Structure formats: structure tokens, C-alpha cells
């Protein structure tokens, strides 16, 4: 796709993000006093993250690999464990990359 489309799409994403952040600051003072709204919003991050993670693990090079010899599956489980233990983004990424490199063999 062209540079113009990329720029416009990015600008639109920026605008949407800005409007979400501006929403209550500009137009209202409180969330409506409805626990359902807060309940709904609480599940947005885990749901979207779950949906983002799965294809990264199981779709390699455009093909589904749901078998147990998929190195990304095991590296992801290592990362999940490290994330639980450390709550550190940096430690999680380091452990997951190290696990993947060990499992699929260092590229050199």
C-alpha cells in the first residue's frame, strides 16, 4: 500500500486514540454510575491480548502449526511462567526469546 494510505491510516489511529483520551476530560466529569460499563471495560485488555497472542504463536509463515513440536508454543509457555513469577516485561521477553533460540537452534 502507498505511503499516503499509511500516513492517513496512522493519523486516523492517532485521532481515535486522542479522542478516547479526551472523552471525559472534555465532555463529562464522571463515568455513568453503571457497574456494567466498568465490567465491560475490564475484559477489553485480556480479550484483545489473547486474540493478538494466539496467531503469533500458532501461525508461522502463514500456516497453522498447532502441534506440540511448534517451538513458539513452548517458548510462549516459558514466557508465561516468567511473566507470572516476575511481572517484568523485560524478563518475559528475554526468557521467551532465549527459549525460542534454544528450541529452534541459534541461527548461526
Amino acid at each position: 500500500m502507498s505511503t499516503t494510505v499509511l500516513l492517513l491510516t496512522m493519523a486516523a489511529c492517532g485521532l481515535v486514540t486522542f479522542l478516547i483520551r479526551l472523552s471525559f476530560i472534555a465532555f463529562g466529569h464522571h463515568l455513568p454510575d453503571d457497574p456494567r460499563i466498568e465490567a465491560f471495560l475490564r475484559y477489553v485488555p485480556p480479550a484483545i491480548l489473547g486474540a493478538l497472542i494466539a496467531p503469533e504463536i500458532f501461525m508461522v509463515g502463514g500456516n497453522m502449526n498447532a502441534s506440540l513440536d511448534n517451538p513458539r508454543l513452548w517458548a510462549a509457555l516459558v514466557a508465561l511462567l516468567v511473566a507470572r513469577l516476575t511481572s517484568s516485561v523485560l524478563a518475559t521477553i528475554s526468557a521467551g526469546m532465549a527459549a525460542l533460540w534454544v528450541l529452534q537452534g541459534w541461527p548461526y
Partner: protein
Amino acid sequence: MAALPIFQPDLMFDDTPRAEFFAGVRAELPLLLGVVPFGLIFGVLGLAAGLPGWAVVLSSSLVFAGSSQVVFAQLWGGATPPPVMVATVGVVNLRHLLYSAAVADFLRNLPWRWKFLLAYLLTDEAFAAAIGRLRDGPPTAHRHFFLLGTGFTLWAGWQLSTLGGVLLGAAIPENWSLDFSIALTFIALLVLSVHRRSDAWAAIAAAVVVLLALALPHKLGLLVAAGVGIAFGLFMRRFDGKKP
């Protein structure tokens, strides 16, 4: 009309704009420990996903929301139609509604240019570092400078680390599988966002549905899976027991 903030004479508290701003900067600095590596990684993986370097750097100021920028890069690499990209980025950033609502009370008397500026700077980390000062500190006239301090510090750290990642990423060979750091970043963020069993169920349901929905046209699978995940989380909520 709410009551005006009550002036609390507190001789130990320095409420000049300058003092508030630098107190915000100091509050934000420890959080940069986590943000700078994320920025570096985003720079590297933005290139790996197929975005040109200038676009990776530009997205950090135009969009300025880390995980949604990763999603943007990933969807762009998958040739997703622009409307779906914008909708997906919007859903990823929906949680900022909560931050906006939480700070709105403290900013309501400010002029519009301040509201726009502070809304632009309202990220997870700037909010986390500032909300304590806003909510519990003295309700003085210049406290919004504290939020400006946290927001600006995070902004500067994010721009510089993204730029660093792009410069670094150009030197990293493709067979290092660095694209996998996208999934790893999300795994870390997911674990941080799971506090109840139903949060985990929302993630699991969305993960299963997204794989089944890969056949959907226009990369709509992500939005459908997120919707199903949210619905399943809400359904499983009743089995959580009594938690806050």
C-alpha cells in the same frame, strides 16, 4: 457547580508550576525502566513487521500508545484494510476511557489547550504515576503541571527509545525471529492485566476464537475474537467469587 478547591496552607508544599512539573518528572523516571526497552523492541519489530523506519518513529508521536502501535505494525504487515486497522487500534486503546474519567475532575477548570495537551499525554504510565498526586495531594492551582511532568517524561522516553530501536533494528538479521517479541510483549501485558479467573477466561476464549476466525475476510477475526472474549469474561464473572 462543584465547590472550588479549598486552599490548604501547607508551607512544606511547593506549588509553583516548576516544582510540580519536576516532581512529576521524578515520579515518572522509575517507570521508564520498563518503557525504554519496550520502545526499543517496538522500533525493532516495527521494521520486522514491514513498516518503513520513518513510519515507526512517526507512529510514536501520532498514535503514542505502545501496545496499539505494535498492533498497528502487525496489521499493516498483514495488509489489513485501513478501517479495520483504525477500529482495532480503537478497541486496544479503549481502556484509556477509564483514565480520562479518573482525571477529568482534576482538569475541569483548565482552558481547552491544557485539556488537549494533557489528553494527548494521557498514557498508562503517565496516569499511573500522577493519579496519586492528583487524588491525594493538596488541591492546589498548579497540580496539572505534575501530570504534565509525568506525561512529558514518558513522551520523551518513548520517542527516543523508538528511534533507538529503529536504528538498532536495521542492523539485526531476520533469522533472529525477533518478530516473536511481539507475542512476548503481549504475554507480559496479559499477565499484568489478569487479576481474576474471568480475566483469564476472556483471554482464552478470544485466543481460541481468533484461530477459528482466521478465515474471516479483511482481518476482522481480531475484532470478532475480542468481542467473544469480552462476552465470555462477563459470563464467567459470576464464578469468580467475591473479589473487588
